[in-house]
């Protein structure tokens, strides 16, 4: 096939199929989508996870090797609530590059309220990681963690 012929074939194929294959339509089939409205104060822990965490830690919390850690077998996720809350509130951006084990940076989540962080972390610990949550994360614990950072 000549280069000109290849171009014609490619453009022709595109015209013929563009109407039949919606990219977003294919991707959305059967999946729930978290929109901005779900990120409000009343959002569930799952909705908060989908809005703030899912793109990096993945839908199941399993992470991406070398890029973002798994939450499923994490000592930190299973740690004492104030320790975990402090880590999430602070993020890893202030750590030196060489102190991070994964390529990407976790941002600070101080912009979330204490209640939102508590709901988010209860979802991560309970629903995703299956931590036996004898000491569930409470807004009060998050507030204590926040106070310790300020």
């Amino acid at each position, binding site marked *: *096939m000549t280069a000109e012929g290849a171009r014609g074939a490619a453009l022709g194929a595109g015209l013929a199929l563009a109407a039949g294959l919606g990219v977003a339509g294919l991707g959305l089939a059967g999946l729930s989508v978290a929109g901005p409205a779900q990120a409000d104060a009343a959002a569930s822990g799952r909705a908060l996870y989908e809005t703030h965490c899912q793109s990096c830690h*993945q839908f199941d919390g399993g992470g991406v*090797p070398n890029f973002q850690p798994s939450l499923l077998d994490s000592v930190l996720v299973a740690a004492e609530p104030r320790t975990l809350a402090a880590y999430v509130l602070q993020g890893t951006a202030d750590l030196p590059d060489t102190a991070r084990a994964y390529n990407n940076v976790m*941002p600070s989540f101080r912009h979330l309220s204490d209640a939102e962080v508590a709901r988010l972390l209860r979802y991560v610990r309970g629903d995703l990681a299956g931590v036996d949550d004898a000491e569930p994360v409470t807004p009060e614990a998050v507030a204590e963690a926040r106070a310790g950072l300020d």
Partner: protein
Amino acid sequence: MTGFTRLTAALGAATALLCAAPALAQAPDQTADGVEVSVPEGFTITPVAQGLGCVRHIAVHEDGTIYGAMMRRSCAAGDGGLVVLRDPDGDGTREATFTGADLQGTGIALYRGRLYYGTDTAIRRYTLDPETGLPAGAGEVIVGGFDEQSQHAVKPIAFDAQGHLYVSVGAPSNACQERMRTPGSPGLDPCPQLDRAGGIWRYDAEATGQRHTTDRRFATGTRNAMGLAYHPGADRLFFASHGRDDLHRLFPDLYTVEQNAELPSEEVHRLVEGGDYGWPYTYYDHEKGRRMVAPEYGGDGETTAEPGRYAEPVATIPGHWAPNDLIVYTAQAFPERYRGGLFIAYHGSWNRAPLPQRGYNVVFVPVSADGERVGAPEVFADGFKGREPLRSPRNAAHRPTGLAIGPDGALYVADDQGGTIWKIAYDR
């Protein structure tokens, strides 16, 4: 017989649409783990090595020896950051030797008979033992002094015909925000990271002891140009770079989840001295066919970047496919339409959630002998991920990471998830 897709881009506007092409794939060859990779009719694909670990960029010597770089020593199947695949007894099976206990990286190339290896902080060179094919001696530093960074730390390399070494230095952030990856945080203006990163640097290919310096910056505004290669007819390099992440998470009022999954474009460019390729101030929107002002710099998803200030892409691919390597097909074994064209390995997305992940393939961009794009980008080899839909890259069987041309004109494809190297040959 399905699964052969084609990306159609309007010439000039560089607008990509995901479309299906006429059924061209032959019955695919099967790898040991049962994954079927489709290639166009007339081509065959055969694994030549498996279980290597996280092999990244590769280079093939004129004697057929394959050299592969490991991004982390800990993920190599053997002890070392360099794998050497040889067939000393000529039985058709390459034997893997792991070496380079002090090495880890992605960039690798053969230049004038010697091996160049890009660690995260230096470009090193090794002479090769003609008997074993292994590096002889401790090697030497060609360019050192690159900054340590966790994001986009690897150093892809390429050479031109005038004795220059090009090093892609990825940006140490997503979008040069005041607060990294933090919702609403503005971009630093000017972005100080561009002084030593986020661009392509040019050094002497053979002088030892050079130090990384802003003065040697050849082009700027490339967030993470993982694939770069010299096109002899055009007498310049082409490169493919990763676009930024997190438009929706960082700016939920401006971008939907669906826009976040598709935007921004992964861009393919010609490399021009002094060129500005737009990061972090802009990004390319292949759906609009325009370069846009980044939201960290006042953009709202609709505002077009200043015309003429930034380079226009040769081709664009939908967001997050992650171009991990690019080569120019300079051999003669493939049909004429492939000669001078670009092959790009897409590592595959991780950040399209909740939509399925995409990429995980090898794309061909038709380019003429003198370096002009003459056709639409098309998926050349597909099926590496081994399942559809794929929701997490963790569940992909293979992720293409490196490309090289062998002395027989075959295309070799490396993968850092299944640790496989394939050979794609044209048999008719």
